[in-house]
């Protein structure tokens, strides 16, 4: 990722060189030939609280868009990691599984979660890719979370 792709929206970083599944806080970065890398955006990470454990799938596991592929556990929160696309897991970030803090520190780079190969390239078209749409969505979500008290002041 180049620094040019990185923006700050209301105090939270967002990378504009990839696609987003707004409901799940997952990002998808195409890396060529139906290959993608998937991770979690910093807002999803921050509002979960301090991460305690990540349960990630094995390579070869089938992904179904909208279905959990793993689980995130924070100090007071547990929730699914929901796949933004359908396909098959090719690689898992063992470093992030061993140290979930990596996802907090470097959500767009070293803190990726899985690499996958898409079964249906049309899935990408269902995600947010337009930079303006991404920043608008992000700003609205940040405002919601601030209102609900999920973001520290």
């Amino acid at each position: 990722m180049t620094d040019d792709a990185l923006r700050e929206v209301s105090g939270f970083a967002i990378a504009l060189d990839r696609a987003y599944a707004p409901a799940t806080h997952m990002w998808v970065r195409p890396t060529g030939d139906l290959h993608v890398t998937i991770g979690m955006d910093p807002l999803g990470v921050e509002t979960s609280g301090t991460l305690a454990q990540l349960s990630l799938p094995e390579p070869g596991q089938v992904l179904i868009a909208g279905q959990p592929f793993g689980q995130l556990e924070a100090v007071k929160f547990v929730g699914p990691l929901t796949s933004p696309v359908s396909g098959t897991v090719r690689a898992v970030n063992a470093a992030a599984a061993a140290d979930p803090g990596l996802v907090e520190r470097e959500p767009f780079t070293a803190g990726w979660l899985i690499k996958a190969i898409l079964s249906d390239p049309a899935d990408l078209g269902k995600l947010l890719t337009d930079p303006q749409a991404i920043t608008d969505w992000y700003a609205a979500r940040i405002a919601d979370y601030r209102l609900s008290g999920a973001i520290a002041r």
Partner: protein
Amino acid sequence: MTALLPVLGSPAKISPDYVRISYASAVALAMKSGRFSREFDFGGINLLLNYDEGCLSDCGYCGLARTRQADYGDQFIRVEWPLVRTGELVDRMAEHEDKLTRLCISMVTHGHAYADTCDITKRIAARVKTPLSILVAPPTLNRHRLETFKAIGVDMIGIGLDAVTEQLFRSIRTDVPAGGLKWEKYWEVVTDSREIFGPWKVNVHTLVGLGETDQDLIEIFTRLRDQQIFSYLFCFNPEPDSRMASHPKSPLMRWRRIQLAKHLIETEGYQAGQFDFDADGSLVHLRASRSAVDAVVSQGVAFMTNGCPGEQGEPGCTRPYGSYRPSEPFRDYPFPPAATDLDQIKAQLRLDEVLG
């Protein structure tokens, strides 16, 4: 020649100017980001005195114990307890007062703990009307000091007895490398507190799973109930690096039955004689009608977190996920259990085995 001046370190972040707060409290006061897995109103704020030396007691199950292997850093009872400035904390409490239900200062065994608890209590009471408890450190107290707590606005006193028999208390809290806590002293503080604070204004924390029997627990529940003192249940949860790190948790079935028994004794007036035990002290039979027990179970209150109440008697100190991880089954519920929760509770209780 140039004289070398001593390099002064930054001032220690210790009480009374700093305290630790539970992660849930920090979220409620927007001092930490985060959410709970299930949405519910939360307003129980738990503070813990903080000293460089930690706690000078040495209890086998505790993350603050003096001879625990690891430096406890920000991790107490497994999760992060952020260190905050007391002044900022009190400002936040005042700002969020409308949603606060109960405040509590947990003392630790330390020479400054009493004076610092008084100082912090006064700072809070001057700004916030939410009822305040102190979870006391008996070795630091006497009757006069308890009277002072009452005089400066403390509403309830909690005593962390934890080990419910004298023998267990001695083996875990007295006869340990840097132990020395006295069973008699704990009960002296229970008695004094009851006299000073009045009926149902004192509670004794009882920890389930340290090695006590069901019979031991039921005896202490009835003994305390008869003195109008609450027993508050806590579920032993092995603390990494403590001496009891590999000691198992109570099975869920036992924990649920103990929750139910405690509720029946404290709220429904059951007597010790209504519980039958085997030779090992395990509960084997409950002398009660099935319909009466089913009605109590269905209310769900028996399985909610035991804690000092809010001003109107509502749940006050609810410590969400205090003795289990968010990914584990609830041990105590910080909200009224929903219908699906009650189905699980009923399955865990296996009441057919002890009724009828």
